[in-house]
């Protein structure tokens, strides 16, 4: 019974986290449209990837550490790293950047 409660709580939280991540990604996409700054596009993709990760966890009822889902997480955070590196590489002095 305790286990069922934990499962229910977990599923609820995962659902909430997934939707929040999708919405956050949408905001970042909007910021990319406004500023044309590639950083926002990459952040949007990263948050959407994390949403996939969390949604998949809810649907497979798996514990993340017992799965290979860390690959999705890895890609998402590597995207963020790439965004930061990209921002610092050739755009030291300007405002909005990126085609």
């Amino acid at each position: 019974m305790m286990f069922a409660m934990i499962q229910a709580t977990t599923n609820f939280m995962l659902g909430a986290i997934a939707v929040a991540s999708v919405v956050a990604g949408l905001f970042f996409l909007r910021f990319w449209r406004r500023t044309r700054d590639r950083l926002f596009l990459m952040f949007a993709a990263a948050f959407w990837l994390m949403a996939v990760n969390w949604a998949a966890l809810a649907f497979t009822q798996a514990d993340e550490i017992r799965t290979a889902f860390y690959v999705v997480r890895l890609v998402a955070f590597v995207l963020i790293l790439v965004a930061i590196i990209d921002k610092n590489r050739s755009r030291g002095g300007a405002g909005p950047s990126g085609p």
Partner: protein
Amino acid sequence: MAEAVYILCAATSLACAVLLLRAFGRSRARFLLWSGLCFALLAVNNVLLYFDLAVFGDEVDLRVLRHATALAGLLLLLFGLIWDAE
């Protein structure tokens, strides 16, 4: 392999949190506060994943705590996006 990934993700999140919170300290743009806190909590989430995988055994399940940190972080980010981001 997974351990290394969680550590990397924790470090990246922490870096984002530091950059955003430092920028908040300079500019007082509140959106930076919320997004910085979000990444701080995501860093905690990744650290907990590492601990759950590599340090604690089967008798300890940090799952609910892990999800709580991620949820809290994302809710803060959403709040900041909706309320403060211009």
